[in-house]
């Protein structure tokens, strides 16, 4: 069997990993610069496309054409996500069915954006192995529904990949731990990432990883922590500077990035300065871990109910859990660790890097599928009950949640009118009694039924949830034994024809000149640096002497000249020189901002007394 690699397609970062044949251990593949994480960000710049760190640098510069956290929109409809659209600077179009994003004059779907990230990881792996890579295992949140899984699989196809398995992230993490550290027993995996939360309870025994129950929230993660901080900062700035920044996408992006960075620092520091240079003023203040915990406390607490529900479904009490494993960058937040510790009454594991452990587990599963590991087996479950809509809009459950997959259910259908040739079914996922409260997956149309009196045709429909957690439906007319034709209309998915078209279009992308892309990257970076320096000179000119001002001015001119050429190396060199020339100024400005922040804090304290 050909090589299979494992990909963690994350909300914030993505990674690719493989199992080393010699050591039998999973390894993350780095890019040329030694970076292991690929930011899941795609920037559309004219004809070109940037991905990863290069796209990240465009977040503030081109907020409307730089797409991040796309995972939150995968397999969703406009109605599902409209509540959070105000946090995204890019434009999501109101539409039926699948969400579409408008970039300039074109529209892209979430699977197409994710495909660009996947393709970049594919290239990274190909550069590492020096051979084409086609087969991959891609991870998804355990609580992803069928549409979200299907969207992820579509993304793989558009990227020219064969997704041989969609793997649940918490189970992937358990596999990675299982390879070396886990003892036999019952394990709870608490996975809080950038945009999603999962809890999975597993029994590990004799090399079998049996998932007993899973629960979660596919719209809860570090992004929501950042948003809570941003809302708070917006209020502060409105109060302190009288400025409302919310209509300004660039300022909002600056705020978000600063909030995220401060949150990260507060995982190790008790307090941290927050300095954001805007065009009109520089905002500075100090933020403490207590401030942060006040802002995110409720969000963290809201992860505990899914944990209790998963325990109840597994028929277990917190005390029955032998080990707790933490996964996802957001589990670095001390408050999260504290709450998990309190719930389960034991210190959670976090020896493996929470950013990498899912990718490592995906590599392990890839190795199992390739036949490289034969003593480990993963038995996963479907996270949500699957049912069909019956008379009166009531859901008849065919496959209950937490059923081990693969699994199938059979249901008989017939006609209600004489001579009826077509039978419709509406398939939903969820735990509510009414179909309208559940997640609509698809409408299936069985056609070619022989005309007969009502109730005479006997059509057996088999609903199969495969090992990917994805639904497949087949139907047979029992009298004739003939397979009935089924047309599937996914509610929030791409039609088969759309995917084919996107696959073709993406191939034309791939042929685009690498050199041209690198030139675009270099120019974009130069533009970013030029903007920053111009702003710094406006605000901090007085901090440095005339000589230094002249040096900076000269470097700026040189960079502008280089920017106008086609010479990528020249632009790179000029950018580096520019950065060096402003290092001292940047330091001075940071000091000044810090002093201002501390002074205002002291003033606050004085006022409080």
């Amino acid at each position, binding site marked *: 069997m050909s090589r299979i690699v494992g990909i963690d397609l994350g909300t914030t970062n993505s990674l690719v990993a493989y199992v080393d044949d010699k050591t039998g251990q999973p390894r993350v593949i780095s890019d040329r610069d030694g970076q292991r994480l690929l930011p899941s960000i795609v920037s559309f710049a004219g004809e070109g496309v940037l991905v990863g760190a290069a796209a990240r640098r465009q977040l503030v510069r081109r907020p409307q054409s730089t797409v991040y956290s796309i995972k939150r929109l995968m397999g969703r409809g406009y109605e599902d996500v409209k509540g959070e659209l105000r946090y995204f600077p890019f434009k999501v179009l109101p539409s039926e069915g699948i969400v579409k994003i408008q970039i300039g004059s074109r529209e892209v779907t979430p699977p197409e954006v994710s495909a660009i990230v996947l393709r970049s990881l594919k290239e990274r792996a190909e550069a590492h192995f020096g051979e084409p890579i086609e087969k991959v295992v891609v991870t998804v949140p355990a609580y992803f529904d069928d549409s979200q899984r299907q969207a992820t699989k579509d993304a793989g196809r558009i990227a020219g990949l064969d997704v041989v398995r969609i793997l649940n992230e918490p189970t992937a993490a358990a596999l990675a731990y299982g390879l070396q550290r886990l003892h036999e027993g019952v394990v709870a995996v608490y996975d809080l990432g950038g945009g999603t939360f999962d809890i999975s309870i597993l029994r590990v025994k004799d090399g*079998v990883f049996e998932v007993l129950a899973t629960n979660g929230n596919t719209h809860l993660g570090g992004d929501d922590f950042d948003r809570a901080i941003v809302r708070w900062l917006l209020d502060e700035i409105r109060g302190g500077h009288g400025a409302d920044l919310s209509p300004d996408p660039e300022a909002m992006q600056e705020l978000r990035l600063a909030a995220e960075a401060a949150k990260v620092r507060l995982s190790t520091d008790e307090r941290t300065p927050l300095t954001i240079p805007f065009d009109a003023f520089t905002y500075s203040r100090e933020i403490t871990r207590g401030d942060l915990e006040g802002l995110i406390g409720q969000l963290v607490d809201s992860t505990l109910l899914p944990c209790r529900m998963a325990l109840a479904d597994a028929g277990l009490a917190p005390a029955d859990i032998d080990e707790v494993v933490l996964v996802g960058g957001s589990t670095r937040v001390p408050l999260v660790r504290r709450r998990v510790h309190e719930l389960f009454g034991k210190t959670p594991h976090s020896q493996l890097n929470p950013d990498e452990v899912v990718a490592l587990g995906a590599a392990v599963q890839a190795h*199992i599928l390739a036949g490289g590991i034969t003593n480990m087996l993963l038995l996963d479950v479907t996270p949500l009950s699957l049912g069909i809509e019956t008379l009166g809009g009531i859901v008849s459950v065919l496959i209950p949640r937490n059923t081990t997959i693969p699994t199938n259910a059979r249901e008989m259908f017939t006609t209600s009118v004489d001579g009826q040739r077509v039978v419709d079914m509406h398939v939903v996922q969820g735990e509510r009694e009414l179909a309208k409260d559940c997640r609509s997956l698809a409408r299936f149309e069985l056609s070619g039924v022989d005309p007969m009196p009502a109730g005479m045709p006997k059509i057996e429909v088999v609903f199969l949830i495969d090992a990917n957690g994805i639904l497949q439906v087949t139907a047979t007319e029992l009298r004739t034994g003939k397979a009935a034709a089924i047309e599937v209309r996914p509610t929030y998915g791409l039609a088969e024809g759309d995917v084919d078209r996107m696959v073709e279009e993406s191939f034309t992308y791939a042929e685009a000149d690498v050199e041209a892309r690198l030139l675009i990257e270099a120019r974009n970076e130069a533009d970013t640096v030029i903007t920053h320096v111009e702003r710094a000179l406006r605000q901090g000119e007085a901090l440095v002497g005339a000589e230094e001002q002249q040096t900076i001015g000269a470097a700026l001119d040189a960079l502008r000249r280089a920017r106008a050429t086609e010479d990528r190396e020249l632009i790179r060199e000029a950018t580096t020189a520019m950065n060096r020339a402003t290092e001292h100024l940047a330091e001075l400005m940071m000091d000044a901002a810090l002093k201002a922040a501390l002074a205002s804090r002291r003033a606050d304290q004085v006022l409080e007394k």
Partner: protein
Amino acid sequence: MDHFEVFGLPRRLRIDGAELQRKFYELSRRYHPDFHQAAPAERQAEVLDASARLNAAYRALRDPISRIEYLVRLEEGRETKEGATVKPKAPPELLGEMFEIQEALQEAKASNRSDGLEPGARETLAAQRDRLLARYRDEEARLRGPLSEAWDAGGSAERSRVLGGFKDALATRAYLRTVIDDIDQALGEAGEGHVSHRRH
């Protein structure tokens, strides 16, 4: 092939859980699609089917109560569909108490208090709920214990009598479950006293 046959077991209710699990893992290693990735499409379809059948069998048999529910369906020739086997039915000796409870629940619904209940009514309902929960557990103990033993030991005449006993006990249990859930909901404790469909 019925669920008992999947595990090579006779149609009896006494099953060693640890042994069943060991066998489930062993058969999973044989049929799980992960180990047949390189097989021809036809073989892949076969193992997929076998794997789905194995998972369904394990789910039905691992819990003593769902095992009985499955047995009832199997004996009545309705083995394909999982789900409710019996109509919930109130046990005759509890009818009086049930009437009171339903009345209290109605009142709770009609009242405009934010928590829905007077403190006194709340206590009474909670006490009733606990009694019903005890009765629910008794019913389960009867199903798992004497009734299951009678099935395993009995001849065919005895078995058809036991089958009736299973159905009555399951109907009572289902009824109690509904009322207990209703009370929990009225008390605002939904989920707390929840007995999941899956127990070990």
